[in-house]
């Protein structure tokens, strides 16, 4: 007996799959399954987060619907995965944010943008908000740097604490000793596997998305998104270092490192999320977690908006639109960071932890 309906179904499927094993070369889920004969809820949550949703096992399965065995591993694990996010959320009181997640994220983003516009307007007169500001420190005429750093640093710190608590809950659920998360060879293996999305390639030919024709598009879009996000994050980090260590204030000229990193990252963060969204809409309905569609869409839209508002700010920073765009950009980024522990962002964290565990299991089974 399992804790939830979806885990009940996942347990049934793993029993079917473990007596077949044809898919063991496709990804990490099936080899992990073969190491077991019975499946606890924790095992199933581990498989769910290890699954990258490439869909290959669905198209390759002789027992997928309409067969009476009704084997649909990707969809089942996708739903189980989403339910696990809510179960691991910290604090527990916020796990409800995963229900109608798209709506929550939209509301939080709207409020956050409104708060920045209102804040700028309340603290300054119209000339400042709609004035033209150029040269070093232009942004800080609207919001002092220390206030900005304190606010975003605080939010970032909170998100990290919430994410760490989530991982702790996941790690306990799957029954791994806590020390294993600090196993360097396993972590290095997981970094390589996650960094190249090794298990989002259908065992070598690409993802299955809208039909049985495999394609690498989802992997490419995800790379653009992930590395785009990384570059943007690096841009912000470099800028912070400039500010505190070299007393160089933003905005920086277009050839300077923060702008170059941010622009390149921003382009990735436009194409990647847009592509992922397009692929999501084309996806075979049999593979989709329809109830949680909003969560996926909200996250990629937030990433897209982060980039779009950031690039708009870059292009129009010497005009009167700068004040409004800065409020918009900061509002979106604030909402992105504060909702990180309560949205699709967590998929990367739990999947990485699952990959660490898988690497550990492969090296020393049992």
């Amino acid at each position, binding site marked *: 007996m399992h804790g939830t309906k979806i885990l009940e179904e996942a347990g049934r499927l793993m029993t*079917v799959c473990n*007596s*077949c*094993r*044809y898919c063991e070369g496709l990804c990490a889920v099936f080899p992990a399954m073969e190491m077991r004969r019975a499946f606890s809820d924790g095992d199933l949550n581990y498989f769910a987060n290890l699954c990258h949703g490439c869909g290959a096992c669905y198209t390759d399965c*002789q027992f997928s619907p309409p067969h009476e065995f009704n084997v649909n591993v990707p969809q089942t694990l996708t739903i189980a995965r989403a339910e696990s996010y809510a179960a691991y959320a910290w604090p527990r009181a916020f796990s409800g944010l995963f229900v109608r997640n798209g709506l929550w994220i939209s509301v939080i983003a709207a409020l956050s943008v409104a708060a920045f516009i209102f804040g700028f307007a309340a603290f300054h007169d119209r000339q400042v908000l709609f004035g033209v500001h150029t040269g070093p420190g232009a942004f800080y005429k609207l919001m002092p740097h220390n206030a900005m750093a304190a606010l975003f640093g605080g939010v970032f710190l909170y998100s990290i604490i919430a994410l760490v608590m989530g991982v702790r809950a996941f790690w306990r659920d799957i029954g791994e000793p806590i020390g294993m998360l600090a196993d360097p060879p396993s972590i290095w293996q997981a970094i390589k596997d996650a960094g190249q999305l090794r298990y989002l390639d259908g065992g070598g030919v690409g993802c299955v998305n809208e039909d049985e024709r495999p394609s690498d598009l989802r992997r490419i879009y995800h790379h653009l998104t992930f590395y785009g996000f990384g570059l943007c994050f690096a841009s912000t980090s470099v800028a912070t270092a400039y500010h505190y260590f070299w007393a160089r204030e933003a905005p920086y000229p277009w050839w300077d490192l923060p702008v170059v990193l941010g622009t390149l990252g921003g382009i990735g963060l436009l194409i990647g999320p847009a592509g992922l969204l397009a692929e999501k809409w084309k996806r075979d309905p049999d593979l989709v977690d329809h109830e949680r569609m909003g969560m996926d869409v909200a996250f990629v839209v937030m990433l897209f908006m982060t980039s779009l508002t950031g690039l708009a700010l870059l292009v129009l920073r010497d005009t009167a639109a700068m004040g409004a765009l800065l409020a918009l950009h900061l509002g979106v980024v604030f909402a992105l960071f504060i909702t990180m522990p309560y949205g699709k962002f967590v998929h990367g964290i739990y999947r990485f932890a699952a990959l660490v565990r898988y690497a550990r299991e492969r090296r020393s089974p049992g």
Partner: protein
Amino acid sequence: MVDLSRKFDVLVIGGGNAALCAAISARQAGASVLVLEGAPKFYRGGNTRHTRNMRCAHDAATDILTGPYTEQEFWEDLQRVTDGETDEELAKHMIAESKDILGWIVEQGVRWQPSLGGTLGLGRTNSFFLGGGRAMLNALYLTAEKLGVDILYDAEVLGLEIENGMFLSAMLKQGHADVAVRAATLVAAAGGFEANIEWLKQYWGDAADNFLIRGTPYNRGSILKMLLDKGVQDVGDPTQCHAVAIDARAPKFDGGIITRHDSVVFGIVVNKHAARFYDEGEDIWPKRYAIWGRLVAAQPDQIAYIIFDSSVRNSFMPTLFPPIEAPTIAGLAARFELDPAALEQTIAGFNAAVRPGTFDHTILDDCRTEGLTPPKTHWARKIETPPYYAYPVRPGITFTYLGTRVNRQARMLMKDGRPAANMFAAGEIMAGNVLGKGYAAGIGMTIGSVFGRIAGREAAQNARN
């Protein structure tokens, strides 16, 4: 839309490995090709859906094969499993051609992987399909589509127009108006008749009602029957089929590989009267795997029960259906309407006959019974550790042996021995030429790919002449 009014160079009837290999090789040789698959798209591919590997000769280890498997060794294995019931010339031709198939099939998009967990014994001889048989089919269909092969699903062929060993057209069921599809040559790759219970009944009587069919309900043998009725020479024993003992709870059709049981050697097998009927420890399991279907088919009501205790519960692959469990032998009997006293007596008699020995299921060990009929000659250990378990099993039919006789070109031979003018066959429908009886893992796919490729090539050439 496929233009059915045109005359195709090659018409392929069937949709599995053999059919697709034929279609691809014919198309690559320049022919226009139409494939008629009788099943809906999901069930396309017949028994290929459920396969997982292919046996090909190779002179050296590869990325995924652990060592060489020479033509000679392949030939010796084939002779052994068929008791010599094979056409030596054809078989050796197939084995020689199989070497090239290892690479050719990869060029068609199929991907290999090392042998699956729990099948280490095949690691040297058999190449496994990454993702299994349906993944292999998906790759072949994609390749065929890219090459411009026309494919129709739900394409039931109602009749073949054949004159004097010359194929003219096939009558295709198309809604209200049936269509005659014309082609210069025919490749029949439509499988056997294992899913045709009425046909099986001709040889097995009402017992066939209790058979379970491991593949799709579409392997009805209608094309095979049409060809034999039109004067094509038959090959293979019509009364025989490949049958294994599968879980009695499996669906009537298409349960595939996951309904199998590997636990026979770890326990005893009784019939509905709770009596044993065959030596469960006769030989290493994979070698005896395929006799149990026939054995169970010969028992009353075609039902049997594999009985074991908790000491061996985890000694074999996990099963789709869990074993039925009970704390006592009598309790177990009651779960199946077996006579509790009879089962207790059978097990007591068996336990009393077990001699001490050192258990090792990977070799023919010295654990055996003495003074018991039938004996259990290896791996015999007392069934005495509760809880007790049982799997109900029935005959699961994999394929049939009756087929069309062919020559080295995969060209059908007529009853008078003449080669057919323009008709070829590949796959299970002609497997009986090389596989008169028995089976060796992966050989069905070898027959399909090798003769499919030959048939396609020859048909394309035939169509040009």
